[in-house]
Every structure is written in C-alpha cells, then in structure tokens.
C-alpha cells in the first residue's frame, strides 16, 4: 500500500505515473504545439544528416554555412512548449493541489522530460561528429528563452508576470536568432572547450529545472484567487435598492467595434500596433548592427541582418486560433449573420494588416536603403514583394478551415507560424527579387483564396464557446 512506502519510493512511483502520460494520448491530443515541434524535429534530423555528410569532407565552419542549424534550436524551443502546455494542464488544474503528491510528480516528470528531449536533440546533433558537450551547450543556450515560458505558462493568471516573461522570452529568442543569422555564434558555441561547456551545461540545466520545479508555486499562488472577484463595495448598514445605473453606455466607433473582433488575439491597441510596426524592425536592425558582432562595417552588418529580420514583419498573432469570443460578439447582433460576422473578422484583420504591414516593411527596408548601397529601385521592388507576401501570409493560418470543419489546433498554429519562418529563410534578399517575385505572388494568391473562401466554411462550422 502506498502509505507504507518510504517517501522516496512513493515519489518515484508518482513521477513514473506522470512520466507514462507522455506516451499516451493525453500528451499528444490537443497539444497545439505538437505539430510544429514535429516539423522542426524532422528539420533538425535533416540538418544533422546534412552536417554529418558535410563534415566528412569539410570543416565545421564551412558545413555550418550551408546548413540550417537554427532548426535544431527551434525544435528544442517548440518541444519545450509542448512539455510546458502538457504539464501546465495538469499542474494548473483546479483539483491538482488537493491530490497528494500530484503537483510534485508532474513537475518532476516535466523537468525530467525536458532534460531528456534536450539531451536527445543534442545527441542527434552530436551524430554529425561535433562533441556532445558542445551540442548540448548550443541546444541549452537556445533553450534559455523557454525558461521564460516555464515562468509564465498560459495558466498563469498574473497578467504582469505574463507580459514581462513573454517579452523577455521573445527578446531572448529574437536575440538568439539574430546572433545565429548575423554572426558565427553557432560555430562559436559548437567549438567551445569542455572546461567551459560542461559547467555551463550543468548551470543552464539547473536553471531550467528550477523554473519547472517551481511551476506549482506560481500556478497555485494567492494571485490565482483574486480577492476582488465578485467583490462589492461595502454598502450602507441596511441598504436600500440602488437605482443608479452602474454601466455607462459607451458608443464605440465603427472601427473600434470592428477591432473588438480581434481583441483577445491582438492584445495591443491599434495605436500601439502602429507605433511598434513603425519603429520596431528599424530599431532592431540598427541596434543589432551597432553591436560589435560579425564582420564588416555598419552597412555590411545591416545587409547581413535584414534577411533574418523578415520574420518581424510576417509573424502572426492567434487571430484565427482564438475564437472563443466570437459567439458572444455574434449575439450582440452588430455584425449580422454568421457569415457576415466571419467576413467582418477577416475584414478587420485585413484592415489592420493593411495599415501595419506597409509600416513594418518600410521600417525594415529603411536601414538597408539608407546605410547600404542598395539602389532605391531594388529596395522598392524587394519591399513590394515582401509586403505582398506578408499580406498573403496573414491569412495562411486559416487554410485548414478550407478543407476541414474542425481542424486540430496544432495544425492551425503550425500554418500560422510556418509561413513566417519560411519567409525568413526565403525572401528577396536571399533569393533575389526575380525568383522571389512569383513566390510572393503565390503566397498572396493563397492568402486571397483563404480570405474569400474560408469565411463561408467557417460560418457553417461550430465555434468554440467554452474555454477550458
């Protein structure tokens, strides 16, 4: 009987039960990141194979120039997301703290799984011939942004903590991607001596483990139970009926009303979105180019950086994945029938992206035009192609609804993220305007197909109206 087992053995058996869940449907079904992680694992395997073949005849430096080592890093990041979603579901459950040993078991299992996938990915890269301590060092460095994810999973109710950690995670991820694209960072990381990497590996693993093991404390902290929920201000000792209307009618402009359709998916206001679009790509390129990393002068560094930054103009929010607010807004009757409603959502998204995408594109193109001898006509052409592709990419996430009534969440997530990553790897700066032109038109055509054909399909499908 469990109660008579020594506590160590009891904890082990608890953890083994929690570990077994990673082999069941409970882990794979409904995990929105699983598909994306799967794609990147596949890409990581291909990268490892490429490296393995190349290293037979070439130096590591040459081999890395012709491989996408970033795929392995992204595979590690997305795998961490999968683990975090799964563990967060159990640890964040309302009854979980009442079950003896469950929180600890789930956290320990998640920490162990996290280490296992990191070592496995590093082992995969080590197959190419690079020492395991170096591949582990590289993988762990790229997993540092995931620590932020573990600190504030979706179940975390503190908005402030969520915002801080999301921004930190995003900044770290962006920084690592830029380092990868613009410097010899992968080569540097993969050629460090063991005396540096082994202690660093242990320290980073410790950091990640600590972030996971303390997850129960954060998910079941006092912040989970807001004291003001349902709280009423103290009334008079023997209150009389209050006839003062509590809600002041507020007339929203047509545009504000339409932007509500995107509200939960686009947490920034339109004004902030426009400001971010105008300044972020240019600032990011300029700041990174100012750092003494990589080779050549300022202009050359900008030329190196810009292709990798195309992700900034193409990355999408969850506008098509987050639909739980649709039924409520539909019942307001302000948008007409179901079809009118879905069309309104698509139009709202289109109107938002028509304003932000040109700003982002101009912002991205400005430094490369000003500081590098890129002919304005070329810049104009590259920018136009990027803009066309970005507009198309916006609606690619809705593609699964064209063929399925209830596509799995993970497919929608994958198709929302993948085009931005693809655009980062093949864009006019890399392929040249002549080759990229037809690709951009193809993406735009796909986006247009989605824009016109998906709303009728979505109007005839069920909408999620209960959140978990």
């Amino acid at each position, binding site marked *: *009987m469990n109660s008579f087992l020594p506590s160590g053995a009891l904890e082990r058996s608890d953890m083994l039960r929690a570990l077994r869940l990673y082999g069941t449907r409970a882990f794979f079904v409904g995990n929105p990141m699983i598909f994306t992680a799967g794609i990147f694992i596949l890409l990581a395997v291909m990268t490892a194979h490429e490296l393995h073949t190349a290293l037979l005849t070439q130096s590591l430096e040459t081999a890395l120039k012709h491989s996408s080592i970033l795929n392995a890093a992204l595979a590690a990041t997305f795998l961490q997301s999968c683990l975090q979603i*799964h563990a967060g579901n159990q640890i*964040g459950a*309302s009854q979980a*703290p009442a079950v003896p040993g469950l929180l600890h078991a789930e956290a320990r299992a998640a920490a162990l799984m996290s280490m296992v996938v990191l070592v496995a990915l590093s082992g995969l890269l080590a197959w190419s011939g690079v020492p395991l301590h170096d591949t582990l060092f590289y993988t762990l460095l790229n997993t540092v942004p995931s620590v932020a994810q573990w600190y504030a999973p979706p179940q975390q109710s503190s908005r402030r903590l969520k915002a801080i950690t999301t921004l930190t995670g995003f900044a770290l991820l962006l920084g690592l991607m830029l380092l990868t694209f613009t410097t010899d960072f992968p080569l540097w990381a993969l050629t460090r001596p063991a005396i540096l990497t082994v202690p660093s590996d242990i320290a980073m693993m410790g950091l990640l483990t600590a972030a996971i093991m303390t997850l129960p404390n954060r998910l079941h902290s006092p912040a989970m139970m807001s004291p003001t929920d349902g709280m009423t201000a103290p*009334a008079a000792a023997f*209150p009389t009926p209050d006839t003062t209307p509590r809600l002041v009618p507020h007339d929203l402009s047509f545009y504000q009303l339409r932007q509500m359709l995107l509200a939960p998916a686009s947490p920034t206001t339109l004004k902030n979105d426009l400001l971010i679009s105008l300044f972020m790509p240019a600032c990011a390129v300029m700041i990174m180019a100012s750092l003494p990393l990589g080779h050549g002068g300022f202009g050359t560094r900008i030329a190196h950086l810009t292709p990798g930054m195309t992700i900034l103009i193409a990355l999408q929010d969850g506008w098509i994945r987050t639909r739980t607010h649709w039924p409520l807004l539909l019942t307001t009757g302000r948008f007409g029938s179901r079809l009118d409603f879905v069309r309104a959502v698509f139009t709202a998204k289109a109107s938002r992206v028509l304003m932000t995408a040109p700003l982002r594109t101009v912002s991205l193109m400005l430094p490369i035009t000003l500081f590098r001898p890129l002919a304005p006509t070329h810049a104009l052409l590259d920018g136009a192609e990027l803009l066309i592709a970005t507009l198309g990419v916006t609606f690619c996430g809705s593609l699964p609804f064209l063929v399925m009534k209830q596509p799995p969440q993970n497919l929608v997530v994958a198709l929302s993220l993948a085009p931005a990553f693809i655009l980062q790897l093949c864009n006019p700066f890399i392929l040249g305007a002549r080759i990229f032109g037809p690709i951009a038109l193809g993406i735009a055509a796909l986006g247009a197909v989605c824009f016109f054909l998906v709303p009728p399909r979505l109007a005839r499908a069920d909408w999620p109206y209960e959140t978990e």
Partner: protein
Amino acid sequence: MQDRNIPSHGAPFSLPVEVSHLTKSFGSFTALDDVSFSIAQGETVALLGRNGAGKSTLIGCLMGFLLADGGNIDIFGHSIASLPREIRARTGFVPQTMTGFGTFRVAQLMDYIAAFYGELPPVDPTLMAWADLDPRKMVRSLSGGQKQRLAIVLAMRHNPEFLVLDEPVASLDPHARRDFMNLLDSYTQRTGASILISSHILSDLERLCSRLLFVRQGRVVLDVPTETFRATTRWLEHLTPDQVLAALPADIQILGQRPDALLVHGWTEDLALPNGTQTVVPDFEDAFLEITAPRTARAEAETPDAAA
C-alpha cells in the same frame, strides 16, 4: 471509518478541522479577519455568505492553497502549513469549476488520480451511477455539468474523511443536484465523514447541514447548529423596534434590522417583549439576506450584534 485503506494518523482525538484567529489579506484588502471555528467528526457544515464575503479564501486557506497571514489551521491535528501526505490523503476537494486535465479520458483520469492515494477499494457503484459518465469520453468534451460530476467523483473516490465542496452544484441540473445532496447525506451517514460545503442553494444547505457558518466581509458573524437556528431565530416586528431592542436581554444576538423589525438569534418563548410585538419565523432565504448583507465599518460598530 469504513472502506478505507489509508490508515488514520494524527492525534487520536483531534478534530478534523480547527481554525483559530485566521487572517488573510490581499494587499490592503482584508479577506479574512480573525476567523475561528472547528468542525467535529460527522458534522456537515454550511459555509454561507455573499459573493466576495471570503468563503473561497477561507476554503483556499483550509485546503492549503493559500497561505494565511495569521492564526492557525489544523487538519486532523496537523498544521496545514506542513500537512503530511497521509493527512492530505484523508481530505477531498470539489472546486467551483473543474479546470485542466482536458486531454485525459474519463477512466484514464480517474485511474491516474486514484493512484496517488494508493490502493483503493472499488469505486462506490452509487457514486458512479449518479455521475453517469462515459469512461471513454475525453474530459474536454464533457459538458459543464458532466465535468462537475467528474470533479465530485474524483474528490470522493478515495472516501475522504474531510470533504470540502466549493459551490459544487452550481452547474448541475435539478435532478443531479437533488441526487447529489442525497448521495452526500448517505455518504456522511455511512462513513462519518466531516463536510464543509459552500453553496448558494440555501434550501439544500438547510436540509443537509447540521451547522451553519455565516460569513460577512471576512468575519464569521454566526456559527450555529441548524436546529438551534430554526428554533431560536425570529423576526420581532414592532412599530418602534428601538423599544424591542431596549427590552432584549444582553445574550440575544441581533442579526439584522428593518424599519419595523429586528432579526434576533437566541429567542425563546418565555422572552419578555413590549406589547404589540409580533414574533415571526423567518424564511431561511430572508434570514440569509439579512445576516449576510454587507455593512459599513460605522454601521458594523453601531449594530447591536457587534457588542453582543
């Protein structure tokens, strides 16, 4: 205790729950202020109060989900701050809404949770019949009511000796609610378990519970056996309630006041009252509204029951 595999621990005669001088604040807001009460074995206690009165905070502290700022909570003689696993295993908790575990199948989740309690006897067939859940269904595909039934099954599966239910029937249909209340009643009869239940379905609480614990603005304002409440709580109607107030002995507790009446606790038939006083048995809902209505700090100080 019947049907249990988990041995009893803790002091031999310790009460299931003893709370003394519990305080809990969130920033400058005091959610619980000097709360003290205890629950004896076999008692079914109703936790009554308006939204935001502090019921969920109290339950959170009792279950160890929230850390108290001051005071003590002992569960089966052990401080909640360092509750041993075997004592935790003697408790059960039904949340207001069941969240998480969405990707499990019902049977898989039941087995998974049960395993944390060690070897358990077969599931009570009455409980399973009441829950009427398809074991192959995924948790996230269950309706709100079905999820709540699953939460109840998960909390009662290991026959807890102390069960805390935080508005357990809010999402149940009337049939399921009535059957659950009967089930809970027979469970306490069969096992001698202690129950703390918070709900807004007052008729259920009045019928099921042996004790009533009224909470207002973070304080316990009335802690009384249900029978005593029924027998000694009355409206004393009079054109000038102040006259009645002046005539009342000091041990009578004033629970509320209307322009033409006082709600008192401690009434007896031989109580001497001014002429023209009508004694009316209060409707339970009316009494609840009166007792739990929020007061300003000034009114709180001026209300006679504060002095009492």
